[in-house]
């Protein structure tokens, strides 16, 4: 996009937004509405669900009585009326103020306040602030993110369980748990991350962690918000949401559109629509109906720079701008909560979603043939492997994924003498299907082409779990549990290359996978200081295309299995400070990783065999304003993770796993002045990491192999809230110091990290209740 066009576009958006805002202001005065009060609360999308979203504020030990972590498990149950106002949703940590303190494992809650302060452009930015979590964005629009926890293979986030309101979001959670749909941060009011034995309530992946995104909640009163951002590289984002109550029902609707030219001319365009309706279903029941649509339309090449290209011009434009991915996702879910008695409730999730993904990838080779008509050649042709020869042809990967699931989840509170039990039990029935077509396109920009390969695969999964949170005393909770997974894969290949030509075939293979996942966790202490620990079995089923070959033969690639230990402590030494540290150890008897090397492709997964992960995560928060009684909020938070993930046996014994840095550190300083001015400075450090199992330091000519240097990234945000009008103005710089770094060497070469980006935004929050 040219500068002139960008300027015209952004001026037009700003004028429209300004006109809308001024019109609303004029309308309010025309109706005789009184001027809004000067103490309008801070802007929020919509109010959070019942119960605070943040971890509870620290209490001063000297002034408050000490309370055990399990003290309120003996408290009277909530009244029936409270159920009608609750939001029916599934949480992995919980909605109560002390849920995090009771979690028998490392956990983090990213609150709405955290999101407002950071003004993230994508989900990856916030997840990087979670101890033990490493995130790589594949493309400038954040359209795909690779999430790794504690050194686990992070490609397509397939080893992390990703949920939205308790519902899986990967394209096929069992058969192909890849994340081609990157959840947009604007949908969410918070994010929960739990590691350790708490994972067994969910699944199927229980290896390292579960991330649950919490979508906007329908408000109790009429509310609206409009938010517009414009930034460098042609970045424009606009969204609006509106919520209200109709009798006992509450709803919220949000529409988002985002586009940009991308850092390396990889343009992107995203649209996201979300609607939620909360309705009571009788005296003791409530249901939440959610419907959503998401579309990504982005330039997406899978070929990175060679070493020489990056050395000559690190900001070189994308090599294959003709490569393009379009993704459409449709989702519908109903979450119902029914309280049978004060001690028994049932949450039922019913969901269905479809993901359509078509990706055209321009064909290329590093080994040219004489006489072949290449569209263009990039790189050093004098060095073998130093150049890439692009053909005017492509490969089109056209896929459709469907998922349907039903999950009843019981919570039963009983007492056996002085011991309180909270029993969680439930199950899942899930059916998922996928249809693949692979076509050879006659030119780089086509989506058509001739059919080379076609297959369909499916999975039917049955799961059940049982967990008992046992409060032996006020200060001791022990949580044993077990989860069972049964999965039946089926793969049918209908067309494939034989003898160099595509032929219609019928090749079928089946495989059954079973998993038993026991675990036990413990929390001991008070809410101000407690120790927690746990042990659980990690399990993740193999991808169907890895476990059944195209010949219909069951392969040796099995499920990921591990034994995981955790021990940690959480403390709130004063009302203005909070600390947490967790040591972890995981022994993998079989970990599947991406094979890396010039001959390996993106989906070339291989058994790494036995691997070890161990390390320590830590996090701290200090509120200087509370300590020193300042009127200006000044908070400093910091998180450090040391994680060593190595191969145990084989030719690479002792080597670090690829893309598993030893050190990660990030910190943020937040300031909020009563005048409305505020800001945040955030710093992150990622240590050096190897990109192949052999731990090669030196870079090879293709750029695929070689160590990644450490990187330091600083983000900063300045904002001003004009309380009377509800307007917030913000100026954000991502990668303020314009650090230049390689974020990955896969799938095929060097991908540079995001460049410095400046974004200016205006937001308007309107609370109808305060205008009455």
């Amino acid at each position: 996009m040219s500068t002139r066009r960008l300027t015209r576009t952004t001026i037009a958006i700003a004028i429209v937004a300004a006109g809308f805002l001024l019109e609303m202001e004029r309308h309010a005065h025309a109706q005789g509405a009184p001027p809004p009060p000067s103490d309008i609360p801070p802007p929020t999308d919509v109010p959070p669900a019942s119960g605070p979203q943040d971890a509870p504020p620290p209490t001063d030990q000297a002034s408050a009585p000490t309370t055990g972590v399990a003290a309120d498990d003996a408290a009277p149950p909530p009244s029936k009326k409270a159920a009608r106002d609750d939001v029916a949703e599934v949480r992995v940590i919980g909605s109560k103020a002390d849920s995090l303190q009771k979690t028998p494992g490392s956990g983090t809650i990213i609150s709405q306040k955290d999101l407002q302060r950071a003004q993230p452009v994508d989900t990856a930015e916030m997840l990087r602030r979670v101890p033990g979590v490493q995130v790589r964005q594949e493309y400038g629009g954040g359209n795909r993110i690779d999430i790794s926890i504690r050194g686990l293979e992070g490609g397509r986030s397939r080893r992390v369980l990703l949920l939205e309101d308790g519902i899986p979001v990967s394209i096929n959670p069992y058969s192909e748990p890849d994340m081609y749909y990157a959840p947009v941060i604007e949908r969410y009011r918070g994010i929960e991350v739990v590691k350790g034995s708490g994972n067994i309530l969910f699944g199927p992946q229980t290896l390292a962690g579960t991330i649950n995104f919490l979508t906007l909640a329908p408000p109790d009163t009429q509310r609206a918000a409009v938010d517009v951002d414009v930034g460098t590289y042609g970045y424009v984002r606009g969204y609006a949401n509106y919520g209200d109550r109709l009798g006992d029902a509450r709803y919220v609707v949000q529409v988002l559109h985002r586009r940009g030219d991308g850092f390396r001319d990889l343009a992107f365009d995203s649209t996201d629509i979300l609607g939620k309706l909360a309705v009571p279903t009788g005296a003791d029941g409530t249901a939440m109906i959610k419907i959503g649509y998401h579309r990504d339309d982005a330039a997406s090449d899978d070929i990175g720079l060679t070493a020489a290209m990056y050395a000559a011009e690190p900001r070189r434009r994308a090599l294959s701008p003709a490569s393009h991915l379009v993704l459409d996702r449709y989702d519908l879910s109903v979450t119902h909560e029914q309280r049978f008695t004060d001690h028994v409730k049932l949450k039922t999730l019913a969901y269905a979603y479809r993901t359509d993904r078509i990706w055209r990838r321009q064909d290329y080779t590093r080994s040219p043939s004489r006489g072949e008509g290449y569209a263009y050649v990039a790189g050093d042709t004098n060095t073998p492997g130093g150049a890439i020869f692009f053909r005017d042809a492509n490969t089109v990967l056209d896929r459709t994924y469907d998922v349907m699931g039903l999950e009843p989840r019981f919570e039963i509170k009983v007492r056996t003498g002085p011991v309180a039990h909270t029993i969680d039990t439930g199950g899942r029935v899930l059916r998922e299907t996928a249809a693949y077509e692979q076509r050879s396109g006659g030119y780089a920009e086509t989506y058509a082409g001739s059919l080379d390969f076609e297959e369909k695969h499916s999975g039917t999964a049955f799961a059940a779990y049982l967990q008992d949170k046992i409060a032996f005393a006020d200060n001791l909770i022990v949580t044993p549990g077990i989860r069972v997974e049964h999965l039946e894969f089926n793969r049918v290949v209908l067309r494939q290359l034989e003898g160099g030509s595509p032929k219609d075939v019928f090749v079928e293979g089946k495989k059954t996978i079973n998993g038993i996942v026991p675990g036990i966790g413990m929390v001991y202490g008070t809410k101000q200081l407690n120790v927690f620990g746990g042990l659980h079995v990690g399990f993740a089923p193999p991808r169907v295309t890895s476990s059944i070959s195209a010949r219909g033969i069951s392969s040796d690639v099995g499920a990921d299995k591990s034994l995981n230990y955790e021990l940690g402590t959480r403390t709130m030494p004063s009302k203005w400070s909070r600390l947490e540290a967790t040591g972890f150890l995981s022994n993998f008897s079989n970990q599947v990783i991406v094979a890396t090397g010039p001959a390996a492709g993106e989906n070339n997964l291989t058994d790494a065999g036995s691997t070890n992960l161990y390390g320590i995560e830590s996090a701290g928060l200090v509120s200087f304003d509370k300590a020193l009684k300042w009127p200006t909020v000044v908070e400093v938070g910091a998180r450090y993770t040391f994680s060593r993930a190595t191969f145990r046996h084989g030719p690479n014994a002792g080597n670090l796993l690829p893309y598993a840095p030893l050190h990660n550190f990030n910190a943020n300083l937040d300031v909020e002045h009563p005048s409305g001015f505020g800001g945040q400075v955030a710093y992150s450090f990622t240590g050096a990491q190897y990109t192949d199992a052999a731990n090669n330091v030196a870079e090879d000519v293709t750029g695929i192999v070689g160590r990644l240097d450490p990187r330091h990234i600083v983000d900063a945000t300045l904002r001003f809230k004009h309380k009377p009008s509800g307007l917030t103005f913000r100026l954000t710089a991502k990668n303020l110091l314009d650090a230049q770094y390689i974020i990955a060497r896969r799938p095929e070469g060097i991908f540079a990290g995001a460049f410095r980006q400046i974004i200016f935004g205006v937001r308007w929050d309107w609370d109808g209740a305060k205008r009455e």
Partner: protein
Amino acid sequence: MTGRASTVGALLALSFVLVIAIGACGEVDHPACYPGDYLGCLCSSEVRGFATCNDGAYGACVCDGRTPGLDGSADATTADSGVVDAGKKGFLGDCTKNDDCETGLFCKDFPAKGTFCSRSCTTSTAATDCPPPSSGCNKDGVCKAP
């Protein structure tokens, strides 16, 4: 205008300025091409060549039948320089392989006639592309051997 309205107006005016400033901010100015790159081009209906990137732009299409990286660089300036490569055969000189021929020429097998150094051509430019003793441009876009 009320105080609050003037404050809002001032803030929005500042917003316009920032929007314009950000929109006009310097971004990475990608050139059309990078040194060492080649762009495939069409010499004739069936013959393709390559244009070399120099100073951020592609030059003329070089139609010598060479593939970059396999047959040496396809440099448009060299083909027109008129410089004779030492030891190399000139136009329609006999040859056994491409390297026997001067830059801009390739070794072509003419059935029943033998192998000679020749070059790509078009029927419209045959007079200049294929001087005597060549008898013109054939249907494959190659200057004919005598």
